[in-house]
């Protein structure tokens, strides 16, 4: 062990954690590929279930895309802390001299790059499938950019709280977190709906930014507290 635990700075820690997370995830492609596939498949189910009328589709498109993004993020988050808890690295994070919330923030950002950013990138394609107005697509992407970050930050609390729960932890996590994500869903799909009907979207987007700022400042603390509980449970 390093005899000077403070010798690594926060930025260096953040960077090395980020590259570790990305390296681990890229070696198991299922981890980041499955959520995107899930997102695409769920959205294709809606025209099959509701009917392919272009008008119906363009009305439900913002909500459908947003709800599917929400579910996909929730599903992917289930395993956020699972491996770290079971191979012991979480214990080391907790014991380290650096604040645990910075570790959480690095993990969340890595997770967003793997499970959030791809959603953003495929969303224009899905918008076309769902007959969403072309002019609303940039707003859709922007709202997903802000929203998925918030969702992952909030979802991380749930993932940490349920990390010790073995079987059924995933569905439990969704039960805990989904009610808390309602504001993001409302303003995210609201922004897209407003854009599709040529209305100003500034209000919705500002509120999404506000939610993100709040989640960014408070959620890592709650997640860190929950992780300490999980580690002390052994």
């Amino acid at each position, binding site marked *: 062990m390093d005899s000077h635990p403070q010798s690594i700075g926060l930025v260096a820690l953040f960077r090395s954690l980020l590259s570790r997370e990305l390296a681990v995830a890229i070696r198991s492609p299922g981890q980041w590929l499955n959520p995107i596939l899930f997102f695409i498949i769920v959205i294709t189910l809606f025209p099959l279930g509701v009917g392919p009328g272009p008008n119906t589709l363009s009305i439900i498109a913002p909500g459908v895309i947003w709800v599917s993004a929400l579910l996909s993020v929730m599903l992917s988050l289930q395993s956020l802390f699972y491996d770290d808890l079971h191979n012991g690295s979480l214990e080391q994070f907790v014991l380290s001299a650096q604040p645990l919330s910075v570790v959480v923030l690095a993990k969340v950002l890595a997770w967003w790059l793997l499970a959030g950013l791809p959603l953003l990138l495929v969303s224009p394609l899905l918008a076309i499938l769902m007959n969403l107005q072309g002019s609303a697509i940039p707003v859709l992407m922007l709202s997903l950019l802000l929203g998925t970050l918030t969702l992952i930050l909030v979802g991380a609390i749930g993932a940490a709280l349920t990390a010790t729960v073995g079987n059924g932890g995933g569905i439990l996590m969704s*039960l*805990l977190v989904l*009610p808390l994500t309602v504001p993001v869903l*409302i303003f995210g799909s609201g922004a897209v709906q407003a854009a599709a009907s040529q209305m100003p979207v500034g209000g919705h987007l500002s509120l999404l930014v506000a939610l993100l700022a709040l989640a960014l400042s408070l959620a890592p603390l*709650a997640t860190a*507290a929950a992780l300490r509980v999980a580690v*002390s*449970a052994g």
Partner: protein
Amino acid sequence: MFKWIHRFGSSPFVYRAASWLAPVFGLGAAACILVGLYLGLVVAPADYEQGDSYRIIFVHVPSAWMSMFVYMVMATSSAVFLIWRMKLADVVAWASAPIGASFTLIALVTGAFWGKPMWGTYWIWDARLTSELLLLFIYLGYMALRSSIEQPQTAARAAAILAVVGVVNIPIIHFSVEWWNTLHQPATISKLDKPSMHISMLRPLLLMVAGFQLLYFHQLMVRVKTGILQREARSAWVAELVANNRV
């Protein structure tokens, strides 16, 4: 000055206090609710617009109020438990969750029954109804988390964190739902604004609110006793109580 607070760390003391307080609160609740129901259902006149159906507010409004009050109690005691590791605070949070969930469910069901004659439908996505429904989900999530972690200490701390996270979120959820609702539903259905009530209706309502409050405290005391017995099942004083048949 704060010496008295340490007595609340002592389970036998709290157990005795709760045993004494439970019937007191219970009697108070019964008195308030009976008189309130009599004044509300028999004495108070029918509303000139809503007829007799408005009378459901004597159950609906108190339970809606309690659904939020109980959550505040739960979140506050969870915070106390997290900060000072006070075991009793966790017992209070544990005991409050199902009671609060029940009040929320009662508020939703009575709201639906009221909605049928007033709005012509059992359910509309009204802002208050929606946030009440989400509050129910949050209660259920809290209980689900508690019951699925086997180790009691871990379950208690995890649930406490969730309760505190929830209390930060509830106002945000409430206001976003309200905003969403005003965006989507133009005021075709006039919401039941708080009317300036006649004293003959206000009196039973306030009595019912007080009664429900006391009912909660009664239930809380009963459940706190249960919780203490569960947690202290192996201690000598519980064994003594059981031996003397005084549980």
